């Protein structure tokens, strides 16, 4: 069967990328197969596990529950885009590493994307809010205690970085 193909343009991690895909190409598969960004993982393909979570215009979404054509013209951030330009891991990535919040790492890209967006909107979450934030992502080996610790640790790192930047700005201004 000859399927119609559609040209899609996505801005992925700040870079404009193009792909020509059939309508049924999932965004997760477009990222992995068409664009070679295999950091986004695919577990269940029905929205339950959260491994495929990416940021669509800054908001976390399941990339397995979206067609690449629907994302045409939008900005996507994948786990590959979370580190800073110089390759330095982001506060959330550092916290996951420090707190041993991963074992096999299969679920990690989804957690990192979801937590990054969560802490941007809620920089100092309560225990309950942090739990709610990760409750849509499944991890089959680490257990959730260290993941929760990492969420709070990331909030700490983020806060201290903001403070440091403010002090630097003040000193620079003086």
């Amino acid at each position: 069967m000859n399927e119609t193909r559609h040209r899609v343009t996505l801005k992925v991690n700040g870079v404009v990328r193009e792909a020509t895909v059939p309508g049924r190409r999932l965004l997760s598969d477009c990222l992995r197969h068409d664009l070679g960004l295999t950091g986004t993982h695919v577990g269940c393909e029905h929205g339950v596990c959260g491994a495929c979570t990416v940021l669509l215009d800054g908001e976390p979404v399941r990339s397995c529950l979206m067609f690449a054509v629907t994302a045409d013209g939008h900005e996507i951030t994948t786990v590959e885009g979370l580190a800073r330009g110089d390759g330095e891991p982001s506060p959330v990535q550092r916290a996951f590493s420090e707190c041993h919040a991963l074992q096999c790492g299969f679920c990690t890209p989804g957690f990192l994307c979801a937590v990054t967006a969560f802490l941007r909107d809620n920089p100092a979450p309560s225990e309950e809010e942090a739990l709610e934030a990760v409750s849509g992502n499944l991890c089959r080996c680490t257990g959730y205690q260290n993941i929760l610790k990492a969420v709070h640790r990331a909030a700490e790192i983020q806060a201290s970085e903001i403070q440091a930047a403010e002090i630097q700005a003040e000193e620079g201004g003086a």
Partner: protein
Amino acid sequence: MKPPPFDYHGPVTLGEALDVLAEAGPDGKVLAGGQSLIPLLNMRLAAPAHIVDVNRVPGLDGIEAGQDGVRVGALARHAAVERSPEAAALPLLRQALRLVAHPVIRNRGTVVGSLVHADPSAEMPAVLALLGGSVRLAARGGEREVAAADFFTGPMESALRPGELAVSAFFPALPGRSGTAFHEVSRRHGDYAVAGVAAAVTLDEDLRVTAARVACVSVGPVPVVVDVTTACGPRPAGSAGWEAAAAAVRDRIEPEGDIHATADYRRHLTGVLAVRALRDAAAAAHGEEA
């Protein structure tokens, strides 16, 4: 798994969307948030020949509150309605949306999509049914407004006809001194409910119950609305015996058993949740008066 092949349409105006839907007829499916349709496609439980992606149609994401209620457009995401100051006029919307899946799913899923999907375990159909709301359906050449009581026709079945697009849903406001609550039990947080009850209670000036209604999920093919006013009122809300209301609810529902829960357990659970929801709704109605 991967979705089966289909012809993809991405209309950019409402007129174009209705034209495409009219031509596709029974072979066409609307794609809104995709949080129910794409899992079905991925599992190959659905194989429509045409997918009409309405995400680019302008003007469908409105959330408008008036004196008489809140109208939610087809592209208003669960998360947008949850955060919307307009929708806050009707606390039941937020009370129910917190229970719909997970925050990440709510970023894409739409309220109107939930209604059309008509899952008997879903929260938003129960809210629409409890409030006596309606869904506006547009087709090439006309629109019609269908009341909740006629809209939900069976499990995963609604009054939507081939060629129609649900453009908005209307959730009517409750009279003064009313309160609402939604309680459910699910196996895991964010899962569909094993049982759930939405309640609305209205009090008079002396804080006696003048109206009390519940809508139950997961205990029938469609949301089951039970008017429990006579079982509650017109005693003062504080002393109202919610047990009698719960008994009335247990009598009215016809739950089925499955691997998650037996029919008896669902009936019991619904009674317990009805008491909690009615009590909290009455307290909220009281709070509004205070």
